[in-house]
């Protein structure tokens, strides 16, 4: 009897999720991850309940937006891509002229009722517009498609990098190039692109990067050269993670974190807190959770019925991976400190909302496939 009731309840839940066009697997994983994030934030924020509540509220808004986005018909999304992209680029230009300066960078746009970073729009708009464009062309993408796509990607990337916001520029850029990669640009061309980029590197070093960005890269190579200055973040973060050992010091017991040795511990360096308090064991579990989410996204991409959905879901999942990889590499001292948060866990609103909307897109893609089938 009870089994029947259970299965009936299950199916009710199932039907509700279907009606809301949501992926139960992805949704469950995102919930778990967010919950971990909130609990961790309590520790990272120095037992600040307000901070935790603010994050929970933001998460609720983000989940709501996920549901909203998931219910937009895919055709509409595709059609809106270019408009959204144009809007995003225009707002970036607006930031350049009217933006607010915060922490030495001009990223914020104050619209009176809300302050937000237009660069966030482009995290979604860039892969959308490139996917929309390429899905209308024959694949594999040829030279013409390649050039058009590169131009579409580089315009916002350069604008964002000049703000300067290296982290977001990398994320936006890689989202665009992932679409290109998935669209089957030949390996040979990818390689030529790679070589071109590496040839441009010294030029980028001089022109595109600001002093503090250069310093960060140099610091990464030798953090001990300036233990109290630029290298301090990396050193303290490594000490926090390393001193966590196998099982960690326990929730709220990380001395590096609780005593403020880890800088930016509730935002970009929150993984250091996690590593210190939950150790290697916890870190592996957390990363596995991320990987499952990413693989779920790739699975949705692979089983989508049209190219726009395949390219977009794939690119968004890969971008999510870039977040994870860049953030964990950065706090463990493998990559320079660029402002990339730990997705869905770091404190802060805009990137979380964008990420959830990205998952909303993935769910929209998934249900559109079912719809078409």
């Amino acid at each position, binding site marked *: 009897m009870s089994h029947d009731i259970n299965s009936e309840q299950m199916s009710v839940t199932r039907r509700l999720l279907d009606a809301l066009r949501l992926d139960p697997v992805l949704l469950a994983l995102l919930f778990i991850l967010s919950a971990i994030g909130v609990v961790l934030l309590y520790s990272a924020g120095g037992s600040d309940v307000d901070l935790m509540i603010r994050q929970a509220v933001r998460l609720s808004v983000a989940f709501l937006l996920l549901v909203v986005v998931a219910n937009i018909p895919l055709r509409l999304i595709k059609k809106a891509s270019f408009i959204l992209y144009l809007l995003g680029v225009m707002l970036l230009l607006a930031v350049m002229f009217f933006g607010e300066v915060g922490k030495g960078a001009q990223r914020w746009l104050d619209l009176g009722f809300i302050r937000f970073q237009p660069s966030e729009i482009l995290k979604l708009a860039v892969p959308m517009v490139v996917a929309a464009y390429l899905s209308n062309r*024959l*694949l*594999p993408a040829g030279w013409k498609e390649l050039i058009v796509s590169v131009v579409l990607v580089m315009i916002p990337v350069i604008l964002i990098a000049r703000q300067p916001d290296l982290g977001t520029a990398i994320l936006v850029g890689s989202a665009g190039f*992932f679409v290109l*990669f*998935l*669209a*089957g640009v030949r390996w040979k061309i990818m390689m030529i692109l790679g070589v071109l980029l590496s040839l441009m590197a010294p030029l980028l070093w001089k022109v595109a990067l600001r002093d503090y960005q250069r310093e960060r890269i140099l610091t990464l190579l030798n953090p001990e050269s300036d233990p109290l200055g630029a290298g301090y973040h990396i050193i*303290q973060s*490594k*000490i*926090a*993670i*390393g*001193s*966590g*050992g*196998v099982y960690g010091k326990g929730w709220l017991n990380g*001395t*590096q974190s609780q*005593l*403020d*040795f880890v800088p930016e511990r509730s935002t970009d360096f929150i993984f250091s807190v996690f*590593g210190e308090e939950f*150790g*290697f064991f916890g*870190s*592996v579990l957390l*990363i596995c959770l991320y*990987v499952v989410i*990413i*693989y779920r996204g*790739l699975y949705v*991409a*692979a089983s989508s019925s049209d*190219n726009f959905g*395949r*390219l977009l879901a*794939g690119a968004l999942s*890969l971008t999510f*991976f870039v977040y994870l*990889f860049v953030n*964990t*590499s950065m706090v*463990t001292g*493998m990559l320079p400190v660029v402002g990339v948060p730990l997705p869905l866990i770091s404190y802060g609103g805009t990137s979380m909302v964008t990420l959830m909307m990205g998952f909303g897109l993935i769910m929209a893609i998934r249900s559109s496939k079912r719809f078409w089938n």
Partner: protein
Amino acid sequence: MSPRVHLRDDYLESRLIRRRLVFSAVFIFVLITLVLGRLYVLQIVDYAHFSTLSDSNRVRIKALPPTRGLIFDRNGVVMANNLPSYRLEIVSEQVDDIDLTLQQLSRYIDFSEQDLKRFKEASHRRRPFESIPLKLNLDDTEVARLAVNLHQFKGVEINARLTRNYPLDELGVHALGYVGRVDTDDLTKVDEANYAGTSHIGKLGLEKFYEDELHGRVGIQQVEVNARGRTLRVLSEIPPVQGNNLYLTIDSKLQKAAELAFGDNAGSVVAIDPNNGEILALVSMPTFDPNLFVNGIGVDLYSELRDSLRRPLFNRALSGQYPPGSTTKPFYGLAGLENNTISKNKKVFCRGYYLLPNEERRYRDWKKEGHGLVDMKTAITQSCDVYFYDLAYSQGIDKMSAFMSEFGFGVKTSIDSTGEKPGIMPSREWKRKAQGMIWFPGETIITGIGQGAMLVTPLQLANSTAAMALKGKRYRPYLVGAIDSSQTDLVREIQPEVVGNYQLKREQNWQHIHKSMVNVVHGLRGTARGINRGLKYKVAGKTGTAQVYGVAQDEEYDAETVADKLRDHALFISYAPAEAPRIAVAVIVENGGSGSSVAAPIARKVMDAYLDRPS
């Protein structure tokens, strides 16, 4: 290149994208493995290393300075204690721009160049998270003014600490000495670790001599701090051990009486208990307030003290060396009797001067017309110089020097304080060493009345007088009678130490000198008879007037016309009660003139204060 097919082949296209997706999945796997590998290295392979770093981040060792031992006089009157005082301290680690902060602070309080210099020195030596004093002993206004503005200064603190205080101010300063702020030099002489939290160290006198006893042991506190160095909790603590308390042999009331007796004169009094060597009073005038030195004396005030012609900083009792003059006569007299050079009844004719055989030079008596026929008793009572010139001539310097050394002349007393000088007891050997010259007979003559090269410190003179009172038994004079160990509550009594034990050949010899000395005070013609009025006990004494200024052969010494600085030093030695001495006193009044009129009354007041007080 194959011609472009305009028909969409969805199967081929989706297969292409899927292949790329699979490739991506593999690539992700590889990169994630890389991250996990990195975590493995940090958290498992290098765990011990990072764990240590983490601990050294959060755990800090704080030094807890011990409380300095107290100093009491022999009756338990506090002479040195510790009072809380407010000091301005800076934790340099927490200050972004130290120069700017100092500049801004100077708007609220004054601190001297010296404060600044000491602060800079200490900041180099101490670790950046330790608080370093910038200014000590803030007064109430300064504390109030700073407290209001403290919020704008990160890393600047007002802390209450115990600081040395001398409640009796300048009283007994030359016995006590004082503490001052620790400098780099001081640290080379002590265990630096033990001084990690200490700001003051004994600089002079007892405070310096007994530094090891007074300081105590530093305590250690392990504290957990946050990234800004703020202490969050104490992990473990070894409390500091308070320094040991000192009980002095000094009697602060006697000390006070002695200092008052001096009036405006410069000089020194030392009073010793002859039966054990306890120093009852140790006075050097003028004095100064040691509290000035505790928290760093200002340059102006310091140079005023240092350059003052009256030299208040100079410890005359231990470091001042004076010709003893006629105060040596009882000793030489005893030497003559003991050496069988002279008999007590032998008379010498004094006509006002003495001539060496075959020499022109006149050795003058202080009494121009002479004393006539004098025996030893008269010679001591009236302080006849000619008698002692003659005695010196008969004895010779070797016997004189040897005998005087038995009573402590020319050697340090080994008092438990700093800065003691040995004085000079001239001898042939001394002269050869010091001047590379042979001894002349004339020098023997003037040495015979305590002039010439002979020098004593007031302490030495008092101690020799004490030895005289005890018929040749001489103790090491000492200032600290007992040490109260703060750890064990055990009081260590310092045992008197006999350092000289001259055996009289004949008791009557000493008796004769003793009687002569009593006669100096109580005899009708005694040079110190002026002080005997109302005396309730018997005193044995001897006056002395030491020449500072060489008077030419045909000149008269006229106190009126001689500048103050060149006037004679007035001296007086005594012990009392004569029949069972309990106190021995030596007084030297610089440029005081005559021993009988200036020095003896001071000694009387000191002895009265000790022997004739209502108890």
